[in-house]
């Protein structure tokens, strides 16, 4: 019983984190057809800006500690927007419509560059900003299990972000335009949609989501160089399992991978290493386009 509870809670926490990491990636791919290797760098930049800002806030030791949560969100918003818009306007807009693989390689070069840029800005020493993590205390679940309330709150935040994304895409005019672009770019252009502006906005939203994932994770970890690279393949796996370009797919992929990992850790910790690739392999073997992916129309 305790085990089952633990599996469910751990799975949900990990799944919500995975979704946060993967959502930005899938949105950017869906609209722009860019599989963004530099997404991990957005995560790292978000984590670094949040950790340094929150660290600075608490070193002053004045003010209400609960404001630090706003700082987390704010730093991700600012850093994500700045970096996203700079990269899209400064580089990617010259490459719209290029081969998908070329774009993967371009963003890979970006990843290399951003990795050292973060080092240049923040150095190699780890950043700690754990106050927001401790502030909410523990929540007891069952007899022996105690969770950090922050992690549980993260589930709620993630669900809220997911619902917002769904609402914007499905219930607003801008969102409908975006879906039109996702569905068929050429027709959308022909109908007068300003795709260039759409791309910039999308890329900024994607990078903000990446930075947000980093910023919300920062309080629970020690922010060090290389954290960005580690999340890329995870995010890729989740997105591919769910179906590229689909928000719902990313959510489904995150839940599946999150639960699978949680089961592995509790039942067979030795297998943890294989879980993600195992799930990806199995899903693709039976559903090549991912859980929620659209089947491609074959041109004759």
């Amino acid at each position, binding site marked *: 019983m305790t085990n089952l509870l633990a599996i469910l809670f751990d799975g949900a926490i990990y799944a919500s984190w995975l979704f946060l990491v993967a959502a930005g990636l899938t949105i950017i791919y869906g609209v722009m057809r860019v*599989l963004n290797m530099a997404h991990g760098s957005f995560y790292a930049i978000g984590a670094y800006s949040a950790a340094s800002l929150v660290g600075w806030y608490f070193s002053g030791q004045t003010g209400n500690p609960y404001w630090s949560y706003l700082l987390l969100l704010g730093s991700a918003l600012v850093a994500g927007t700045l970096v996203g818009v700079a990269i899209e306007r400064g580089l990617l807009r*010259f*490459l719209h419509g*290029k*081969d*998908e*693989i*070329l774009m*993967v*390689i*371009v963003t*890979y*070069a*970006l*990843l*290399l*560059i951003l*990795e*050292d*840029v973060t*080092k*240049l800005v923040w150095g190699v020493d780890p950043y700690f900003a754990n106050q927001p993590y401790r502030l909410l205390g523990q929540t007891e679940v069952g007899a022996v299990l105690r969770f950090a309330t922050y992690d549980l709150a993260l589930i709620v935040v993630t669900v809220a972000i997911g619902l917002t994304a769904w609402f914007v895409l499905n219930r607003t005019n801008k969102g409908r335009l975006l879906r039109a672009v996702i569905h068929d770019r050429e027709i959308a252009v022909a109908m007068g949609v300003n795709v260039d502006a759409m791309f910039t906005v999308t890329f900024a939203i994607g990078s903000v989501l990446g930075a947000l994932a980093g910023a919300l994770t920062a309080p629970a970890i020690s922010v060090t160089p290389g954290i960005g*690279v580690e999340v890329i*393949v995870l995010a*890729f*796996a989740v997105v*591919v399992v769910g179906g*590229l370009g689909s928000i719902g797919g990313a959510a489904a992929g995150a839940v599946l991978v999150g639960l699978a990992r949680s089961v592995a850790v509790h039942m067979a910790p*030795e297998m943890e*290493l*294989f879980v993600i*690739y*195992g799930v*990806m*392999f199995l899903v*693709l*073997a039976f559903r*090549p*386009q*991912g859980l929620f992916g659209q089947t*491609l129309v*074959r*041109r*004759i």
Partner: protein
Amino acid sequence: MTFQDRFKSTESALVATAVLLAAGAFVMPAWLSFLLTLAFAKALVVLGVVIQMRAGLVSFGQALFFCIGGYGVGLGAQALGISDAFLLLALGTLAAVLLALICGFLLTRYREIFFAMLTLALSMILYGVLVKSSALGSTDGFNVAPPSFLGWEPEGETRKQAVYLLTVAIAAATAVGFHRYLESGLGRVMEAIRENEIRVDYLGLSPRWLLFANYVFAAAISALGGGLTAIASGHIDPDMAFWTTSGEFVFIAILGGTGHVAAPFIGAIVFSVIRTFAIQEAPHYWQMALGIVLLGLILFLPKGLWSLIARRKLQVAK
């Protein structure tokens, strides 16, 4: 110039370059010949990526066969006690071909990003298996004893030269062989498959079986590259199968271009030279230096370094 002439002139140019590089072994500094050895070994894997790219498939898991080739050599030397370089390389290549025959069945059903991610998943599963094998040193890997060459056991720098010459010879032979393959009907069909698979189907050819053959060829030369890397560096570890290794191969493939069999070799050399000097000149920020240079090359030469040469040849022809 007729087609036949061009065919022959490319081959003689490849052989002449190889002879020149081989002769260079006796004049170039030792570090350079070692760098070239590893670059050529890497280029073989990149060639494996390139021939699949020509068919429209991008493998993000070519490191799978690179690693199998390396571990084939390592295990052949350690567990089976084989010391001959040719036998070891054959062993690694054979293992890769067998694995490719199995994986190919599944993978040739997939296209585009799904092919890429599945190949990635397979190589990461091998990575996981190796990490869990403490008998094989887990992530530390293990060292490969220096091989002999048909009974000849050179020492020290002579051995490094021998490995270099072997690599140049194998690379040249592979390049000539694959040039013929790319120019052959089969090789041409690969491009047709990339452009429109269904039409190829209508021609009465089976794209799936053609891609399967292509996949197995790619696996074989990638394993050869892995085996040569293991012999040259004397060490193998699971990093050979890690996704970043595959990423590097794709990167070099794009850098060199897919237009010619020589392109991966040019790409691999340029990549290695840029990297080593970035590391030397900017030890703290070499990744950024490498990233900027490569980004520049990709932006201004989207068809790869080979396009420079192709253009020049076009001008000369005019």
